[in-house]
Structures are given as structure tokens and as C-alpha cells.
């Protein structure tokens, strides 16, 4: 574990091994930032791409299933 200089950087150290846990501001913001990205609407192009890949899949043409 890294040494934390007291007075400079003092994240939550009280018994928690998780420096990015729910009580850390950085941890909360990180999740908020990421959750916002995850909930972003997915453009159709990705579903279309997968359908194209599926159709183009050479193994599929061999009529096994």
C-alpha cells in the first residue's frame, strides 16, 4: 500500500481496503461518470453491424445448426 502523507492526501483510510468505495468522493464521481456513459443510447449501427456479421459468417452457410 502506498504511503499517504497526512494533511496532503487523506482518502478514507478507516478500516476500508477500498479507496474507491462508496464513501470516497472520487469513487462516487467515477461511478456517476461511467454510469452516464453506459446509459447513453446505443446507435443502431452496432446492431446492424452484428446482423451483417452474422449473415456474412462463412460457417453459417454450411447449413449446420
Amino acid at each position, binding site marked *: 500500500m502506498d504511503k499517504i502523507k497526512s494533511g496532503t492526501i*487523506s482518502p*478514507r483510510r478507516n478500516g476500508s481496503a477500498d*479507496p474507491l468505495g462508496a464513501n*470516497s468522493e*472520487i469513487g462516487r464521481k467515477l461511478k456517476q461518470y461511467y454510469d452516464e456513459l453506459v446509459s*447513453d443510447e*446505443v446507435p443502431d449501427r452496432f446492431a446492424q453491424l452484428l446482423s451483417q456479421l452474422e449473415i456474412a459468417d462463412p460457417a453459417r452457410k454450411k447449413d449446420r445448426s
Partner: protein
Amino acid sequence: MSASPVFKTDLLGAIPSLRAFAVSLSQNSDKADDLVQETLVKAWDKHASFQPGTNLKAWLFTILRNEFYSQMRKRGREVQDSDGIMTARLAVHPSQHGMLDLKDFRGALEQLPEDQREAIILIGASGFSYEEAAEICNCAVGTIKSRVSRARNRLQEILKISGEAEFGPDAISSQVMGSNAA
């Protein structure tokens, strides 16, 4: 062997996470979507090398990450340059009452080196274990731990939430630790 419909469904389900990771890495939503597209094509081609029952998300993140770094090498660190411009525009100031604004946080995150940013995202946001993150980044668990710790310290420095004992986690820890009670 054909990629099964299940595989396709699983890929579809992973897209939101892949996009979030791609944006976090590249800090650019157009590049991020190109990365995701490339990742899906590669994943489809390599689907035979995926072992069912293992972590598909980790496998996909690994592909995406490799793609990101290989594109970055090809572009001669152009990604990094545009980061610099963005960073200059987004000077970070602590908001009033210490309530950290998401925009400030984004700006701070952008200033981290890629290796630290990806580490703190994988651990702090994507929900991977240190072991999984180490595998995705092809490095030792200890390396991930130190990157996360450096990223966290750096973010706290940039956002100036360190040393301010009036609010936030510092207030809690200083009470508990009985120190730093300014």
C-alpha cells in the same frame, strides 16, 4: 464453427459497457464508437477463441484496449495531442461548497495518463477485480494497484479535494482519525 445467436446477443448486451470504456480511454465519442465497431468485428472473427463460461466482458475489453493502443501507435499519439487541447480548455476549479461537479471530474480524468485512467476506470467503475484488470491490461496485479492509487491521488490533487477538511470524505476520516482537525 459458427458464432451462435447467443454470442451475438451477448455482444449486443456488452455494447453499452464497451462504449463507456472506449469513451473513457479515448476521451472522444467518435473515436470511441469506431473502437467499439472494430472490437465487435474482431470479437466476431475470434469468437472461436472465446471460452464460454469465462468473462465475455473482460475478453471484449481486452480486445478493445489492444485496438485502442494499436490505433494510437498508428496515429502517432495524435490522441494525446488532442487531449492536451481539451485539457487546456477545461481548467478545473473546485466548485463552491466542495460539491464536485461531473464536468470538473471529466476534465480531471482527462488529464490522467492513459494507463492510470484505464486502471481507475476498470477498478472503480467497470466493476472488474484487480486480477481481471491486470489480465485486461496485460500487466501485474501490483501494477494495477499502483496505477489506481496514483490515479486517485492525482485526481484528488487536480480537484483539490485533498486537505480540505470541511466536507466530503476528508471530514469523515479526520473525525475518525482524530487528526487534521483544522
